[in-house]
């Protein structure tokens, strides 16, 4: 039983477009919601993270939107670039560490 559900499985976006990936979680005890980015042949790396006391966090072109009542959060990538092509994982967890991951979204940004 997956505690964090992620969609879509794959996403194709034109360069300059907006990429949106959605996640939903079940465990209301989660207090940490990171997004990880993984390039082929590499391990996942933290991209951006949010805590449930804020509704939005922005870092450069990457924004997390968080809806606590709906138990949903999403990643928005503005002005998507071919270099953003990667697999993205959302996660939910406690104390930054005991995390459960979504199934991943393979993003392809076409030039």
């Amino acid at each position: 039983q997956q505690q964090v559900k992620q969609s879509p499985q794959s996403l194709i976006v034109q360069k300059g477009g907006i990429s949106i990936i959605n996640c939903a979680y079940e465990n209301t005890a989660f207090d940490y919601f990171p997004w990880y980015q993984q390039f082929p042949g590499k391990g996942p790396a933290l991209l951006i993270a949010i805590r449930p006391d804020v509704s939005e966090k922005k870092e450069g072109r990457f924004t997390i939107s968080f809806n606590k009542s709906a138990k949903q959060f999403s990643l928005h990538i503005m002005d998507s670039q071919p270099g953003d092509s990667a697999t993205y994982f959302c996660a939910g967890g406690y104390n930054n560490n005991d995390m459960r991951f979504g199934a991943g979204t393979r993003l392809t940004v076409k030039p």
Partner: protein
Amino acid sequence: DVKVTQSSRYLVKRTGEKVFLECVQDMDHENMFWYRQDPGLGLRLIYFSYDVKMKEKGDIPEGYSVSREKKERFSLILESASTNQTSMYLCASGSNTDTQYFGPGTRLTVL
């Protein structure tokens, strides 16, 4: 920079063999984790450890065991490898005030 290293990038073993996957971190993190990554399933937690000689089962511990004799080293053991354990194995480390950092992964094939 945090460095998490895994002993092998690629490994091929035969059914029934005992397999050891080693992970070493250089950040003095208390917490270490083993995940397996499969297409469409994301990252699934196998085992984790919050301290030396301490271990906790994750979501899919069956067929695996772990060992943590030193703080920096966390080993995953497949007592008798089976073909359904063919997967990418990712090790991660972290602390309660910092996120998880992942190694590059070991792609294990069991024939």
